[in-house]
């Protein structure tokens, strides 16, 4: 179990309720959620639709604040930050990749990547150089002057990843970054995100429905109706892992089933105890097993 000093994210007894509105009742999106993510960790957050994944990720990224509880990221207690400090936190400490509407449509790829640097007043020349370098790193250097509407979904996500890395964040948060992508693009996007994690030691948290995507991570946090119901250590997906969508959906289910059997239990609020590098073993084959986990790939 990593101590507080080694954790990039410490969530303690976090609740998030959406107040009742008119006929709509109050929604308890997160209930008593506690966990830690060690520096350099790769964590997938998995759960059925409406379980609170995005809510949780938004809280980690300072896009939203918990109703109760505390969230400490990189040593900063987000619940104590002013609006201005939160904006700065979002610009410098985290890099966000969303499922859709990631890029500003009127701006070119390069200009989109420059945005977070503009937010922290980086000089124009420096921002441009770094943007081009990042676009090169994600293989989009030739599309620097293109607007998003001339790029495929996967290409847009690569640009979005470049943008997320612009200010060298300690934590990269991705909310279903591969949700709209085909297998090839999904693989490219996940490879990029994990490369950054490996090379730069950036902590990665990915929300996903998809076991294949989750397989790129060390740990999967399972969330069900606003509670963390378990935490499993993954065998990482490798390049040879068959993509469930491409090959056989059963493969994904099988992978899940294996997670369960090797898993580190389902106790609530279990802190992650393993750093990167644990459970690295290529998934061997496809063994169809019953799985209570909601694991449809595209819901």
């Amino acid at each position, binding site marked *: 179990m990593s101590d507080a000093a080694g954790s990039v994210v410490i969530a303690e007894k976090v609740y998030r309720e959406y107040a009742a509105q008119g006929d709509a009742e109050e929604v308890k999106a997160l209930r008593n959620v506690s966990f830690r993510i060690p520096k350099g960790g790769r964590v997938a957050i998995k759960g059925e639709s409406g379980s609170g994944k995005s809510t949780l990720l938004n809280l980690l*990224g300072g896009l939203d604040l918990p109703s109760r509880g505390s969230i400490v990221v990189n040593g900063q207690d987000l619940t104590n930050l002013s609006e201005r400090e939160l904006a700065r936190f*979002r610009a410098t400490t985290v890099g*966000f990749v969303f*499922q*859709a509407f990631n890029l500003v*449509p009127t*701006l070119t790829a390069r200009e989109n990547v420059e945005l*977070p640097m503009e937010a922290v007043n980086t000089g124009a020349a420096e921002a441009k150089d770094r943007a081009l370098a990042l676009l090169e790193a994600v293989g989009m250097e030739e599309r620097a002057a293109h607007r998003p509407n001339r790029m495929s979904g996967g290409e847009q996500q690569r640009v979005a990843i470049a943008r997320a890395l612009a200010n060298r964040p300690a934590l990269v948060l991705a909310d279903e970054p591969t949700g709209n992508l085909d297998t090839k693009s999904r693989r490219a996007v996940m490879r990029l995100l994990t490369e950054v994690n490996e090379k730069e030691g950036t902590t990665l948290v990915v929300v996903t429905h998809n076991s294949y995507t989750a397989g790129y991570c060390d740990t999967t946090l399972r969330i069900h109706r606003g509670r963390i119901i378990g935490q499993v250590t993954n065998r990482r997906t490798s390049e040879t892992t068959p993509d469930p969508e491409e090959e056989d959906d059963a493969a994904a289910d099988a992978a899940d089933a294996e997670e369960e059997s090797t898993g580190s239990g389902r106790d609530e609020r279990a802190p992650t105890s393993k750093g990167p590098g644990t459970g690295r073993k290529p998934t061997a084959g496809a063994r169809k097993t019953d799985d209570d986990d909601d694991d449809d790939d595209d819901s």
Partner: protein
Amino acid sequence: MSLFSRAARNVLRSRVRTIGVALALGIALSAFLILSQINYGVSENVASARAAVADLVTVQSANSSGFDASSRLPNDLLPKIAEVPFIVSVQRVLLETPGFTPGQGGGPGSGGMPANFTLYEGIDSTSAVSSFGGFGGGSGLTITAGSTLTSTDENRSVAIVGSTYASDHDVIPGSEISVNGSGMQVVGVFSSGSGFGGDSVILPYPAAAAAFAASGPNFITVTVSASADLDSVVSQLRTVLGSGVSVTAASQNSGGAFGSAVDSILSSTQFESYAALGIGAAVMVVVMALLTAQRTREIGLLKAIGFGNGKILGQLLTEGLLLSAIGLPVALVATVALGPTVAQYVATSSSSSGAGPGGRHFFGNFASRLVGGVSFALTPEILLLGAAVTIVFGFVGSAYPIARALRLRPAEAVRHE
């Protein structure tokens, strides 16, 4: 990528919208500029007209419009006036408007007014020709043919006629005209600027009095040695002349009948200029709201990736100011091009509503003379006013989007549908 160029790109994203906004804002802003320029110019003209008569006192019969035979003063006032100190000169003015019957058909200027009538004016001193009996002020009359009346003409049967009269009656200097049956020789033709009193005949007072068998003048205009003495002269004249005679400083006198035309111009242009401002502001609010409504997610995304409220506010304000600046060039061109036409229209419409003796024909021309002199050049004042309104429009237009953006929670905005 600067904030400015990003804002410009957002504002100019659609060519059709850009042109539409430029036209709508340009027209509203130019309407405001033109109307306020008319308002300002007319006030200035009135002020200078009043300044020109600052040392004049008008004596006229109480309870009369002063424009008809029933408003004549008794002839024996002159010696009484002469007793009052600080008076430099005294000038009798006889007005006769055949065909104009006051008090009939709902009063002067409203109904039963002949479309055309000639104003005959008999005056003592030819030097007063330029002031045209103390009305209107300034140097309204220019001799365009022949000569003006001089002091040697005082006891002769001569006249000068307005250009309208001259062309209507085919008159040139040397022609003989009939004034109420008495023959007068025309010595000159004058032009009256924009036409005020163009259909009129000016005669030496004795000739006019004889021709119309007038018992006395309609007005006596008294020139005071210094405007500082005006109040004391007015009060002494009131004492000396008693009731039945009204004594007023000419600068205040021009209130009454003329004032209604002026007031009508001033109040309508003021109201309309405010309406134009309101329309321009409404255009801004609507277009900026449209411009930012589809961009809620984009603005939320900017917040999500670390843009603080200050930066968002700066961008939206820049967009508002840029949008509103689109209208400025159109407004300035339209102001210069359309100003005089609008001014003429305002003059015509205000004179048809502004009643007064002489009605449309007489005071319509007065109004157009007041408005006609207003300039619509690109003076620094107009540029400044235009720029100021543009800036205000920019702020007004961005207020709502900014208020919305500040309340926007990034988590809501980036939530995918």
